[in-house]
């Protein structure tokens, strides 16, 4: 049985095809998010089907997740990112007990029990300061890509202290720091530390190890290290972190019956 998972995130749409017989991902891909979410998701889905040499009727079920999940009307059902990231990470790293997911517009801390069941979770969804949006803002202000930004962060010798907890005010602060001659790598590392600090506050006192970091932001060099410092414990980057939500959605689609809502 082949199932599909689609993670319609705020910055990109990710899709995964999962074959239950060998229990593996057989295709995955992503595309930038846009206004026409369903069309973009459908195009990505079709592209994956073509790459895998499959036709739509061969797909047993499609589950959508992510903030734009309700726009994906061709999905059979929708499930939240909490459940999907938990399933996806558990599949790839069964030992994970805490998952940190930093997305484009929110961040989450998910606690897992042995067996991968969600024990508890916390979400930051009302402030950009603990999300990838903060990095996006800085990248846009400095006219460079996320990846280039993260690369710069690795060169930091003494990360700057970003004292504002509001992204809008932090932007002004960052401009001020640069105007004062602070090295750019230090400012970038300071932004990463600020995000990590916000996420660690969200995690509170219930972080069980091992901690896995997932979501697109996990791919950026320096972020995992910043999280380690903020949490005071090792943080591992999940395998294929940008796809764990979509994988979890595909696994949910494969579950009989789906135990979503």
């Amino acid at each position, binding site marked *: 049985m082949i199932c599909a998972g689609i993670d319609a995130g705020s910055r990109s749409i990710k899709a995964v095809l999962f074959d239950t017989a060998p229990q593996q991902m057989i295709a995955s891909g992503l595309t930038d998010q846009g206004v026409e979410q369903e069309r973009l998701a459908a195009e990505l889905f079709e592209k994956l089907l073509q790459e895998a040499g499959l036709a739509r009727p061969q797909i047993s079920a499609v589950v959508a997740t992510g*903030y734009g999940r309700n726009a994906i009307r061709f999905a059979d059902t929708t*499930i*939240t*990112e*909490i*459940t999907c990231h938990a399933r996806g990470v558990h599949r790839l790293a069964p030992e994970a007990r805490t998952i940190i997911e930093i997305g484009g517009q*929110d961040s989450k801390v998910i606690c897992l029990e042995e*067996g991968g*069941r*969600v*024990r*508890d*979770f*916390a*979400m930051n*969804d*009302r402030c950009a300061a603990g999300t990838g949006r903060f990095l996006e803002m800085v990248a846009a202000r400095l006219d460079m890509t996320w990846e280039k930004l993260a690369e710069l962060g690795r060169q930091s010798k003494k990360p700057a202290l970003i004292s504002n907890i509001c992204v809008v005010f932090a932007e002004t602060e960052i401009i001020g720091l640069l105007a004062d001659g602070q090295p750019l790598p230090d400012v970038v590392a300071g932004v990463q530390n600020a995000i990590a600090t916000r996420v660690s506050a969200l995690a*509170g*006192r*219930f972080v069980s190890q091992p901690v896995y970091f997932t979501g697109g932001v996990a791919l950026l060099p320096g972020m995992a290290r910043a999280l380690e410092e903020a949490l005071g414990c090792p943080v591992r980057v999940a395998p294929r972190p940008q796809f764990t939500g979509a994988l979890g959605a595909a696994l949910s689609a494969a579950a009989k019956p789906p*135990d*979503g*809502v």
Partner: protein
Amino acid sequence: MNSAPRQLNLDQWDARYEQLRRDGLREPAYGGPLRRLMVREKDFRLQQLRFDNSPAALRLWNFLLTENQRLHQARAGGHKIVGTMKDLGTVPVMAYALPGLRAFYPDGAWWTPCLMECSDRLLQKAERMGLDASFCPVRAMLPALVDGGHFPRPDLLICSSGAVCDDFSAIAQRLEHLGHAILWWEIPRRRRPASGETACALPGLLAAPKIQVDCVRTELQRVGQALGKLAGKTLDDDCLAAGIRAANQVRRRLDSLRRAVYSAPAAPLPALEMLVAEMLAIHFCSDREETIAVLDDLLAEVQSRARRSQFVIGAEAARIFWVNPVADLRAMNLLEELGGRLCGSDFMFSHALDLIPEDLPPLEALARSALADPMVGPTGDRAARIVRECQAGRAEAVAVSRIPGASHCAREGEIIREIVRREIGIPAIEIEIPPVCDAMLPSLASGLRALVETARSRRTR
């Protein structure tokens, strides 16, 4: 007149109301179709809500939403109006023990921005009076009182101070500075009796040192004298004892309603109506006798539905314990739309649901009841009660809603979540709900739905 329980929007209620009228619906003087409240009172939020379809629920909503009108009528009929601020359920018991007094809860204006979808600009007016969005939405009370466009200006304003919400104290002080005299009474922060101190048992399995109970009793005595002066009759022990017995009639009914709804295998009454019904405990929605009648109707409806095994929300729904009242009523509907149901609640006035002791001198009993207020004691005490009620209601998860700007709950939610997690190991989330939550609906829905998913996924494995 019985029909299968379900939730209706305002349009559906129009048709339902006509049907009920044809079938001989009998209503109190404040009755009528819900739509008139949207048109006349500009309660636009009603268009976004889904209501229980029973005549009992119709009566509840009409009772709630005609309070200002009923207060004006009471004033015109010669009643004295008493605004009992901050105190949640103590001073109203005293006021209703005296003839000719109507106590109401000006703080209740905090729902007005939600109901009117901010169309009367109460929050903006509050900002112009120096209280911006960093304060609790209760700040809507300030322009409502100053303008006099909602409820009548009270003949007497009473407000508790001390171990109460900082925001509210600031708002009430601003009100006083604007020329509205306030009778302040103080309530100390409740603490556990120290070794060697005489302890007094409080409702809700709590205890406080006798010195604190004595202090509150003396303060309430002063309040009682002011109320007596306003009523032209001394608030003596007999009078107060009768008032306590009457208040306990309300509390017993609420207890029966909560037990019937929260312990049922599926929900016989929706979460929104339960929130509104429980709120009646605070000040009887300005009419104690009518509160009893409204609750009797609701209880009869719930019992009838349970007998017929007819429910509004099915047994598969995740059993959610809800902490704190919501600034936007829409959130309670949302919980059920996303697969949850209420199996318990702590809307921040649990002490007003507990029976006031009838075997103690009346002022002493009221002082003990006031000191059991969850807001004047440690959060750990509140969390302990939540844990007990979660266990009793077989809660599968806890939702702690936060009120933007409300300083009394800045860290309370986090502490409650930690204690719930530690003691009973069920998931708990904290969500912020502003007076009109439309802009936040996607993220709010995600959080609630994830909670429901998590609760359900823990059932089977």
